[in-house]
């Protein structure tokens, strides 16, 4: 019980995430005496680090194998298959792994740690109403002073983690699992939820790790406990609609409500570690208007891709942005600048490919700064699998609408003009 309380105190709720499980395991391993307690604390930290190391890969082509919730769920499944007794064995193995993990020792982490320590000795957050935001301000002051613009997002996350650890260690407190942002601007997160009680809790828990100014959760057409799951865990502004709003309408609603400079869009069915969201927020901070999820690393060979992926690529190629591959505003996570929201307008945000076409037409800056594998994590529903895939139908329709809009704006051939054909020779009016 004591261990449980400790894990909770460090901000790792004992119920789900792998980090929490490892913290548990570490506690168990440590026993109850004074010396092992510090060891336990260290393990708690390493566990948190491991959970966090994953998103640092964002932007890279290949991701570390065996990282993330998929593995954890795989293990759970394996344990379930084996029955009761092996579950104990499994737990032992976890303890071993957690204990064998190396201490974080990257240069970025250490630099962050030193900075955090200095600030920890210097300033207090006690009187702050919004402690994580306040710490983020100190952190930004640090990064700006030291001009750490050249850091990769992975390094940034390591440094910010080190900073948080250093700060709280200096104040002789257990560091919370906070993830700091690479921006001073205000950030809003918008989450659309429809019958996603199993995942939404974890999604919200990850958002709670970030210094977000606004969080909107749009629960619609839900007949399960999605709403309660959010309400129990979050200070977010939760909007609940008994009827389904339809695809991507929740996003537009969130965009209407949000006042922030940077808007981050998520879905309730895909749990993304807070660290993995940093590149999207950071890219908008650095001037991008649309920061899309780079799904390039997860694409199958063309012949095995679905129709929707083909349409996404064709839309980008048609818009002269072949470089964007199949990256699409349809996919989460993505972030928009306030300028993008205002330029594109809410009706277009409801049809993401249309917004993307308009963004290119209006010269907004589009990048794909991070990679999150949403293909694997996407919840399988009756309407998005199989032969009569209604969602695919909808998204293809969205792309037709986008191409139609692009054609109306820039001519039906867009930039691909036909200057060679002597069409009058065909004898038709065409």
């Amino acid at each position, binding site marked *: 019980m004591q261990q449980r309380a400790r894990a909770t105190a460090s901000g790792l709720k004992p119920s789900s995430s792998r980090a929490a499980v490892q913290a548990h395991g570490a506690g168990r391993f440590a026993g109850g005496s004074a010396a092992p307690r510090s060891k336990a604390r260290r393990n708690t930290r390493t566990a948190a680090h491991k959970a966090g190391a994953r998103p640092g890969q964002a932007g890279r082509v290949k991701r570390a194998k065996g990282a993330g919730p998929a593995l954890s769920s795989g293990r759970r499944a394996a344990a379930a298959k084996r029955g009761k007794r092996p579950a104990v064995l499994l737990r032992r193995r976890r303890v071993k792994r957690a204990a064998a993990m190396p201490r974080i020792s990257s240069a970025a982490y250490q630099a962050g740690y030193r900075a955090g320590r200095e600030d920890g000795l210097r300033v207090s957050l006690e009187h702050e109403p919004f402690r994580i935001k306040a710490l983020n301000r100190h952190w930004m002051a640090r990064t700006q002073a030291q001009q750490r613009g050249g850091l990769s997002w992975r390094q940034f996350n390591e440094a910010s983690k080190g900073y948080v650890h250093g700060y709280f260690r200096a104040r002789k407190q257990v560091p919370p699992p906070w993830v700091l942002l690479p921006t001073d601007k205000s950030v809003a997160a918008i989450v659309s939820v429809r019958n996603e009680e199993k995942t939404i809790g974890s999604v919200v828990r990850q958002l709670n790790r970030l210094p977000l100014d606004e969080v909107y959760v749009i629960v619609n057409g839900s007949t399960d406990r999605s709403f309660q799951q959010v309400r129990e865990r979050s200070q977010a502004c939760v909007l609940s609609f008994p009827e389904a709003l339809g695809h991507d309408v929740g996003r537009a609603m969130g965009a209407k409500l949000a006042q922030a400079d940077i808007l981050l869009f998520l879905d309730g069915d895909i749990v993304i570690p807070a660290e993995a969201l940093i590149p999207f927020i950071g890219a908008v901070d650095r001037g991008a208007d649309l920061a899309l999820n780079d799904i390039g690393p997860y694409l199958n060979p063309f012949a095995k891709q679905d129709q929707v992926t083909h349409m996404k690529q064709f839309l980008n190629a048609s818009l002269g942005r072949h470089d964007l591959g199949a990256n699409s505003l349809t996919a989460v996570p993505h972030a928009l600048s306030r300028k993008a929201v205002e330029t594109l307008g*809410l009706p277009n945000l409801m049809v993401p490919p249309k917004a993307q076409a308009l963004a290119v037409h209006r010269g907004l800056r589009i990048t794909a700064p991070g990679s999150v594998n949403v293909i694997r994590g996407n919840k399988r529903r009756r309407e998005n699998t199989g032969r009569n895939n209604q969602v695919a139908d909808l998204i293809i329709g969205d792309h037709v609408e986008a191409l*139609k809009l692009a054609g109306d704006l820039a001519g039906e051939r867009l930039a691909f003009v036909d200057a060679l054909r002597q069409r009058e020779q065909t004898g038709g009016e*065409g």
Partner: protein
Amino acid sequence: MRILNKNHSALLRAPTSKVSVIIPVMNERKTLAAVLREVKKLKPLEIIVVANGSTDGSAAIASKSGAKVLTFDQPLGHDVGRSIGARHAAGEILLFLDGDMVIPAAQLRPYLRAVERGVDVALNRYNGKLSRSTVHPVVLAKHALNTVLGRPDLKGASLTTIPHAMSRQAAQTIGFEQLAVPPKAQAIAIQHRLKVKAVHLIQVGKLNPVRRREKGADPLGNLIVGDHLEAINWYAKATNDRGLRSDLSRNRHIVR
């Protein structure tokens, strides 16, 4: 078993004497004679060579071999020759080829057979190179168009690709002038519920001469991508903005 029977009955049917073969030619002296030689094995009703902008004597080669030659001093631009040739054709089946690609007669027969058996537009089952995750924009465009038209089963099969055959009836339904922009013709054909089918595979990618692609700029590729955009736009106008696709329960009026 059934397939065998079908083929058999097709072979027993009247010979393919009602075929018009349409070959646009622009300075393709090197290959034209061989192309014509293979085509003649099909015993077509007529061979229509649309020589445009040719200065190398291609037209002379064609007329010497007995083809009907339509000559234009200026290049007509891509695929315009097909449209003109089709308009002049008298046969019941139109077979479209290029002057620069020699395809054995035996490989051409499946297209004619398919049209004889009731297919309106018989396409080459060629999809392009698909082994990588990203493909050439032209290949992408072909797949995307078929998807939009609700015919993902056609994959990358396209009227842009030769060889292909269609009934004269189909060409009339589509409109001869539309054949100059093949993807648009494909959209029209499918929209008019013509029977469009990918019937036989010829690896034109391997036969395609390298000279077609210049380094760096890809004017032909851009033209074809534009054609597909034109086709999708036509389709969106002929149907609706979403190409008749569902909007599911999207409540667009709840926020503005």
